[in-house]
C-alpha cells in the first residue's frame, strides 16, 4: 500500500542532499572540532560554516548562534538561561497558554521555584493579544516567550508587535520558531527577538540537533558546564555531522522557501475546502488566514481522534490528533482547550501537516477515504443521537 505521510509538524524525512553533506563527517572528516591539527580544523571549519548558514537565514551574526541538541534544548536554555542570569532584575516571565511543552513545562518548573509566570490566554483562533502582553509587564518582568506559530493549529502569532512591546519595555523576548523556520520568513531584527529556538528535523534536517539564537549582549547563564565549546555556554564535543546537516537543511530551506510555501498553501486550502464540503459537522481549528502554509487542523464532531487515526493508518495515511486517549491524564490537547473547544471536539481533532513530498493526489486520497471513515465511526457514536 502507498503510504501518505501527513505529519510534517512531527518530523520530516532528512533530505538526501542533507545526508550527503553529513556523511563525510562521520568517517573521513571525523575530527574533534576542538583539536588543532588538520582533522580538527576540518571539523571546526564545517561547524563554523553551518553556523553562518543558520545565522544568514534569520538575519543574525554567526557568533549569535549556539548549537543545541534540538528545539527542546533551545527552549529550555532560553528560559532557564535568562531566568537564572537575571534574577536580580526580576523574577517574572510572561508566556502563553498554547506554547509547546518544551516552553510550558520549563515555565512550570521555574514557577515552582522563585519565579512568577503569567500564562496569557488566546482568542478562539489561537491568537495572543499584544495588548495583553503589554498589560502583563511589571517592573519584575525579565522575559516574554511566545511561539512564532503554533505546532498544533498552525496559527501565526503577532510576534513582531510583541517584539516591539518587549523592546520598549526593556524585556528580553524569546520565540520558538521550530514550526516557522524554513516555512515563512524569520528575521530576528524585524521581529525584534533576543532569543529564538530552531530545530533541524522539522525542516528536512537530522534529528538531535538544533540551535538557539542569542542576540549579542543578552545575559544568560551557561546551559552545559564542561569544555569550552560554544563559548562555554553549551559544553560538549560538537555533533559535527548533525550540525553540518542543520546547516545544509537551512541553506536549502532558504533557497526554496517562496515557491514551496505557495505550493503547500494551495494543497492546504484544497484539503480544508474538500473536508468542509465532504463532511458535515466539521470545523477548522486555528486561524483561517494567519496560518502556517502546511497546517490543516479540523475537529470532526461525534467521533474520537485516535479511532480516526487508526482507520487512516489502515489506509496508509499518517496524521495526528489532539485527543489524548492514550496519555495518562486523558486530557485532550491544552492548545485546543485554550482555544475554547469543548472536550469532545478537542478529542475529535485531526491534524494534517503537509510537506515537500506531498502531492495533489495525496490530498485527494484523504478526501476520498476520510468521509467513509467518519460515517462508519459516527454510526457507532452515542453522541450523534443526542444531537438529533
Amino acid at each position: 500500500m502507498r503510504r501518505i505521510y501527513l505529519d510534517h509538524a512531527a518530523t520530516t524525512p532528512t533530505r538526501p542532499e542533507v545526508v550527503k553533506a553529513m556523511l563525510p563527517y562521520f568517517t573521513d572528516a571525523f575530527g574533534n572540532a576542538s583539536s588543532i591539527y588538520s582533522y580538527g580544523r576540518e571539523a571546526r571549519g564545517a561547524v563554523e560554516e553551518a553556523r553562518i548558514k543558520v545565522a544568514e537565514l534569520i538575519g543574525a551574526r554567526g557568533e549569535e548562534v549556539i548549537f543545541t541538541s534540538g528545539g527542546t534544548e533551545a527552549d529550555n536554555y532560553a528560559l532557564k538561561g535568562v531566568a537564572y542570569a537575571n534574577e536580580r532584575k526580576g523574577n517574572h516571565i510572561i508566556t502563553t497558554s498554547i506554547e509547546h511543552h518544551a516552553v510550558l513545562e520549563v515555565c512550570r518548573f521555574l514557577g515552582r521555584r522563585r519565579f512568577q509566570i503569567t500564562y496569557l490566554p488566546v482568542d478562539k483562533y489561537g491568537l495572543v493579544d499584544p495588548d495583553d502582553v503589554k498589560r502583563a509587564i511589571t517592573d519584575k518582568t525579565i522575559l516574554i516567550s511566545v511561539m512564532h506559530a503554533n505546532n498544533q493549529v498552525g496559527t501565526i502569532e503577532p510576534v513582531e508587535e510583541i517584539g516591539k512591546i518587549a523592546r520598549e519595555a526593556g524585556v528580553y523576548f524569546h520565540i520558538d520558531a521550530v514550526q516557522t523556520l524554513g516555512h515563512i520568513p524569520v528575521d530576528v531584527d524585524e521581529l525584534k527577538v533576543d532569543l529564538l529556538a530552531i530545530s533541524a528535523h522539522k525542516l528536512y534536517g537530522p534529528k538531535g540537533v538544533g540551535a538557539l539564537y542569542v542576540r549579542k549582549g543578552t545575559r544568560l547563564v551557561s546551559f552545559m558546564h564542561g569544555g569550552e565549546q560554544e563559548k562555554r555556554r553549551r559544553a560538549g564535543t560538537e555533533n559535527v555531522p548533525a550540525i553540518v546537516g542543520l546547516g545544509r537543511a537551512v541553506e536549502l530551506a532558504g533557497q526554496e522557501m517562496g515557491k514551496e510555501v505557495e505550493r503547500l498553501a494551495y494543497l492546504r486550502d484544497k484539503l480544508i475546502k474538500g473536508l468542509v464540503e465532504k463532511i458535515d459537522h466539521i470545523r477548522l481549528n486555528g486561524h483561517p488566514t494567519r496560518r502556517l502554509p502546511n497546517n490543516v487542523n479540523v475537529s470532526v464532531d461525534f467521533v474520537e481522534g485516535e479511532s480516526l487515526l487508526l482507520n487512516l493508518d489502515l489506509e496508509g495515511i499518517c496524521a495526528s490528533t489532539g485527543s489524548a486517549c492514550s496519555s495518562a491524564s486523558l486530557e485532550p490537547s491544552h492548545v485546543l482547550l485554550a482555544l475554547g473547544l469543548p472536550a469532545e471536539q478537542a478529542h475529535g481533532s485531526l491534524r494534517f501537516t503537509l510537506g515537500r513530498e506531498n502531492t495533489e493526489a495525496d490530498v485527494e486520497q484523504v478526501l476520498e477515504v476520510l468521509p467513509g471513515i467518519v460515517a462508519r465511526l459516527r454510526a457507532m457514536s452515542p453522541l450523534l443521537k443526542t444531537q438529533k
Partner: protein
Amino acid sequence: MSDIWSLYSEKVMEHFKNPRNVGEIENPDGVGRVGNPVCGDIMELYIKVNDGIIVDAKFKTFGCGAAIASSSMVTEMVKGNSIEEALKISNKAVAEALDGLPPVKMHCSVLAEDALKAAIENYLSNSTSPL
C-alpha cells in the same frame, strides 16, 4: 502515539475494524451509559433479557480503538449469560479476551464493565418496580 499501534493486539484491531453488535436495541430491557467527553470515552450498552437470560446486547461508543474493541467484546461475551453470570464479567476478563490491552488503555475495559453493570442495574430497577 505511534507506540499505541504496535501495542494493540491483533484481536483488538480485528474487533476495532469489524465491531460486533453496533447499534441500539429497540425497547431494551436495560441501558447503561458511562464515561464522559472530557476523557474522550462514552459508552452506551443495551440489553434484551428473556427469563433472566441476556439474549441480545448492542453498543454505541465514542472513543479510541481500545474503547470500541472493548465494547464489541463485552457485548459478545454477555450474550447468552444469566444476569448472575453477566455481573461476574470483569474488566480484566474483557481485556484478556482481547489478548490484552496496553496499560494506558485498561480504563477502556473498565468502562466496558461499568457499562454492562449499569445496563443490568437499569434492567433490575425496571423489573422490580411495583406491578
